[in-house]
C-alpha cells in the first residue's frame, strides 16, 4: 500500500492529481490518500480511496501498513519517514502556486535526495517516473531507522548553554 498524505494544513492539488493519474494506469499497488480539504474547486481523486483528514490513530495505522509514503518536502514528513524507516517520495511545494510561502522545500528536497529511502520528484511530471522507478527498486531499499534525537553535538551545545556551562 502507498500512503499519500498532504498534512493537516493546505491541500496539494498538483500532487494528488499526479498520483491519481498514475493510479489510473497502475494495477500493482493500491494508494490511500489523506488529501486535506480540496475546497469547492479542488481536485477529487477517482482512482484511489481517500479522505480529507484522518485521526492520529488512523494515521499511525496507515503509516505502519504502507510500503511507501508520498508527501511534500516538509521536515515533519521527512523526519517521520527517517525515524520510522519508511521509504518516502517527496515533492516540494512551490510559492508560485501558493502552496507555501517560499521555495524552501525545493532546497530541502535537494538536500535530502541523497539519503537512503528518500526519492524526490522535482515537480508533478516526475511523480509517474519516480513511482515507476520505486516499483522496480523497492526490494533493494534498505533503510536504517534514525534515532529519536538530534546529533549529540547539537544537544550538548544547547545543554551547556541552558545549564550555563563553559563560555557562551
Amino acid at each position, binding site marked *: 500500500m502507498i500512503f499519500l498524505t498532504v498534512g*493537516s494544513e493546505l491541500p496539494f492539488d498538483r500532487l494528488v492529481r499526479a498520483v491519481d493519474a498514475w493510479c489510473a494506469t497502475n494495477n500493482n499497488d493500491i494508494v490511500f490518500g489523506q488529501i486535506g480539504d480540496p475546497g469547492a474547486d479542488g481536485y477529487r481523486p477517482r482512482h484511489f480511496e481517500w479522505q480529507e483528514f484522518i485521526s492520529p490513530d488512523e494515521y499511525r495505522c496507515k503509516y505502519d501498513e504502507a510500503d511507501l509514503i508520498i508527501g511534500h518536502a*516538509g*521536515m515533519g514528513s521527512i*523526519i517521520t519517514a527517517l525515524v520510522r524507516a519508511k521509504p518516502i517520495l517527496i515533492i516540494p511545494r512551490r510559492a508560485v502556486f501558493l502552496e507555501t510561502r517560499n521555495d524552501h522545500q525545493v*532546497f530541502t528536497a535537494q538536500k535530502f535526495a541523497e539519503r537512503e529511502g528518500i526519492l524526490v520528484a522535482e515537480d508533478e511530471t516526475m511523480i509517474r517516473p519516480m513511482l515507476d522507478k520505486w516499483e522496480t527498486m523497492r526490494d533493494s531499499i534498505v533503510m536504517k531507522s534514525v534515532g529519536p534525537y*538530534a*546529533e549529540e553535538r*547539537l544537544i550538548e551545545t544547547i545543554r551547556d*548553554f541552558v545549564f550555563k556551562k563553559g563560555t557562551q
Partner: protein
Amino acid sequence: MSSMKKEIPPRILAIASAGGHWVQLMRLRPAWEGCTVYYVSTSANRKREVIQDAKNRDVSPPAFYVVIEASRWEKFKLVRQFLQITKILLQVRPDVIISTGAAPGFFALRIGKLFGARTIWVDSIANSGEISLSGKKVGKSANLWLTQWEHLTVTNGNCNTPRYEGKVV
C-alpha cells in the same frame, strides 16, 4: 555559602509552531532534561502527544500551552498569538527560551529578552538555502544562534552570524 546551596534547575520555555518546527524541537529534548519545562505550540494534538508520552514513561506531564495558529498573512491572528505568548511569558518567567521557529518563536524570543531571559534560536533544517525570515530578524539578538547548515555560517564580514553545531537529523 553559595556552593552549598542546592542548584535550582533552570526554567525553560520551548516553543515552536506545530508542523516540522515542532518535530525538530522535540528532537532536542535531552538538552533540557532536568529543567522545569514549559511547552508552547499551535496545536492541541501536540499537547495530547506530549501528555501521552509522559504517561507512557510514567513521569508527570510538563506544562503545555496551546496558542492560536497564524500564518504570516493573518495579521489579526498574529496579534492574538503575540498577546497569548506575552501572557504565558508573564506567568512563566522562564530563565531560558528556545525555539526552532517560526512566528511563535520569534515573538517569544523578542518578548523574553525584555524580561531578561537567555534565548536560543535554532534555525530550521528546512532552511538550507538561506536563514529563515524569523531567524534573520531575531537571530542576532539571541544569546545562542544556531543554523543546521554549515555553509550558512559564512557571511561577508558580519560578526553576528549563526554557529553550526550539527543537525536535528
